[in-house]
Structures are given as structure tokens and as C-alpha cells.
């Protein structure tokens, strides 16, 4: 790679300044474990009338309004689930059974009375719940807890690593990314797509039909991030143009990562260079946060 790094501040000190107060706690991790394992197994039990309604409670209401949707003797709503109406669901929080409230929806008065409130109940977790998830190599609750703890912490470390690189870059002394390096990085992204979709053989019309809709990019990004890059482009030239800024960022991030983790992985030669170095940084961040 032609682009060079000349100086970088102390990354550990920078990370200390950023801090990790929002690192996932054991409680948050356990909450996510419970949510994953108990999907499909949650029940509701009626709560005492005086207990205030919270998000996720299931409530039975009597609704009165000129609006047909809000004029019902009995309607059952899960608070905060986003199915019924945000205004009503927000108003329900803190109410108790027997209480009445009024809100305005579409300019009309809607009044409702809470007839019943039920609280969500989670079952006791068992190994069978874990086995139903069919996570490879994991069949016990203890193993699943370890797996999820590792996964959630690693995801956090990856996000924190990204923040660290952003904070470091303004203080780093580097070359402006060389055109040759930018071109090479984009070529490495383009080549597998070219082969897979026979992009050289596509007519402009075919390309547009296949990849013209930029709004599809966000959907594909969740499962096929490489393919997502094609959406919104019209041809090879526009693909390269669309990737220019990202390639510059990749080059600069790799310079920083290389210095931090002591690696000479080169993004102009290896499309996985950034990923590999990022993984090393993540493990170092995890050590700083959690020790060990």
C-alpha cells in the first residue's frame, strides 16, 4: 500500500477517555437470553388492580369514540407493542384498573377505561429451550449463557472499536489515501461480484433492472452486505464512484488498526484485512473492559 501512517496518539488512553459506561451488563445480557429462549412461551397473569400498567402488559379496555376503531366494548392491547395505537398505549403506562382516560386521535376525542391488566410471565429456563433454538454445538443453558455473553460483548467491542478509530483519525498523521490504493480496494470488492453476477456481460438495462433500486440496499445489507453495494448503481463506473469514500475510510482505518494491533495486513491486497485486524482490536478492548 502506498498510503502511509506517520504518527498516532496513544489508543489506550483515547479508549479510556471514550469510556465504556454503556458496556452490556450481566442484567442486560440475561434479559436478551430470556427474550430469545422464551419466545413462544410467554404467558400472562392478571395483576392486582392497584398495580400501575407498564410496557408489555396486556390490558383489556372499553373504548368510546366516534372513530369506529376506537369505539369497542372490549379491546385487548399489548402495551408498547405497536399494534393498536401509540397515543393510547403511551397513555396507558402508569394507569390502573378502573381508571379512565381521554386522548385525541385524528382530531377526535377517544376515551377508554381499563377493565383488566395482565403482566407478562416468563417460564423457568431449561436446557430444552436451548435445544429448540438449534444453535450449533450448544445444548445446555450454561453453554448458551456463555455463548450469548461472548456474542453480545463482542458486538459491543466492535462498536466501541469503530468509535475509537473515528476519534483517533483526526489526530493521526497520514498521507491522503493514494488513488492507486483506493482503486485496488474497490477492485477487491468488485471482483467477486463481477464473477458471481457476470457483470461484464450485463447490458445497462439489465444492470438497472437488477440493481437499480437503491432502497433495496438496506434490506440486502442485513444478509448479503457485499451484494447490497450493487444496489443503486448503474454500471461499473458508478459502482466505483459510489465506493470511493468508503475505500478511503478503509485505507485510513487499516493504517490505524495496523499500528494499534501490530499487523501489516494490507487492504489493497486482502479484502479481509480490516476485518482481521478489527477482530484483534476487539479482543484487546474486551480485555480492557472485562479483564482476563
Amino acid at each position, binding site marked *: 500500500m502506498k498510503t502511509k501512517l506517520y504518527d498516532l496518539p496513544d489508543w489506550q488512553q483515547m479508549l479510556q477517555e471514550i469510556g465504556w459506561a454503556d458496556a452490556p451488563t450481566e442484567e442486560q445480557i440475561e434479559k436478551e437470553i430470556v427474550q430469545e429462549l422464551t*419466545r413462544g412461551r410467554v404467558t400472562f397473569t392478571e395483576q392486582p388492580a392497584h398495580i400501575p400498567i407498564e410496557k408489555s402488559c396486556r390490558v383489556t379496555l372499553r373504548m368510546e369514540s366516534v372513530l*369506529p*376503531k376506537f369505539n369497542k366494548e372490549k379491546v385487548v392491547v399489548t402495551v408498547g407493542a*405497536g*399494534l393498536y395505537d401509540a397515543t393510547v398505549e403511551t397513555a396507558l403506562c402508569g394507569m390502573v384498573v378502573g381508571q379512565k382516560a381521554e386522548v385525541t386521535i385524528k382530531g377526535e376525542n377517544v376515551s377508554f377505561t381499563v377493565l383488566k391488566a395482565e403482566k407478562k410471565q416468563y417460564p423457568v429456563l431449561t436446557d430444552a429451550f436451548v435445544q429448540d433454538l438449534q444453535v450449533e454445538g450448544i445444548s445446555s443453558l450454561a453453554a448458551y449463557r456463555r455463548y450469548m455473553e461472548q456474542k453480545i460483548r463482542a458486538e459491543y467491542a466492535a462498536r466501541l472499536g469503530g468509535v475509537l478509530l473515528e476519534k483517533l483519525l483526526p489526530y493521526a498523521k497520514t498521507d491522503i489515501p493514494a488513488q492507486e490504493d483506493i482503486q485496488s480496494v474497490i477492485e477487491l470488492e468488485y471482483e467477486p461480484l463481477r464473477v458471481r453476477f457476470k457483470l461484464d456481460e450485463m447490458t445497462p438495462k439489465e444492470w438497472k433492472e437488477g440493481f437499480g433500486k437503491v432502497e433495496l440496499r438496506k434490506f*440486502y445489507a442485513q444478509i448479503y452486505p457485499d451484494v447490497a453495494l450493487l444496489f443503486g448503481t448503474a454500471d461499473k463506473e458508478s459502482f466505483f464512484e459510489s465506493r470511493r469514500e468508503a475505500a478511503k475510510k478503509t485505507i485510513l482505518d487499516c493504517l490505524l488498526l495496523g499500528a494499534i494491533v501490530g499487523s501489516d495486513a494490507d487492504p489493497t491486497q486482502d479484502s479481509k484485512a480490516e476485518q482481521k485486524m478489527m477482530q484483534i482490536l476487539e479482543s484487546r478492548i474486551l480485555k480492557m473492559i472485562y479483564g482476563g
Partner: protein
Amino acid sequence: MAIAYPTTKDYDETVKEGFWIADFYTTACGPCKLIDMVVGQIVTDNPDINWAKCNLENDWDMMERYQVEGTPTLIFYLDGQEKGRMVGGFHTVEEIQGEISKILYGE
């Protein structure tokens, strides 16, 4: 609230009571994975909504029987009656919630 994995043998029995999202998919289908995430979120937030996960690779007869022309296809049932369907993987949580809301609560 339940998650079930029906085939033609027990499909009608599965969806006969309550609100069900029948989710027809194949394991190789990319957009099906998107819908899986979206429906998973909806079912987690709404324990009264049940999820019938119908892997066509386990029973291809379901395609003809339930007129599924492609994957993913979602069919919404209320007490055994089909109330709506959505085809394709590019639907947001809000879009699917909107369909469910219309069925359960009206417009």
C-alpha cells in the same frame, strides 16, 4: 402465544384458534431470513400473536394447498380464517404491524 412448525397434516388444526402468522420459507431463501427477523421481533413484542413456521422443504404440498407462489409468503389467520397475506421479503416491522393491526382492530 406459540411457535409451531406445521405441515399439511396439522396446519389447519394449528391455525384454527387465535391470531397466526403462517410464514412460508425455504432455507436457501435470503429474503426469508429478513422476514424471519422482522416476524421474530413482532412475535416477541406481541405474545398473543402466534407463529407457524412452514418450511416448504419439509412438505412441498403446502405450496399448492395454500397457494403459495413464492417465498417468503406470510398468511395471516384469525381463528382459522385467512385474513390477508404478504409476499416478498422487503417488508418492515411497521408494514407488517400495520397489516396485523387492520385485521385485529380495524382501520
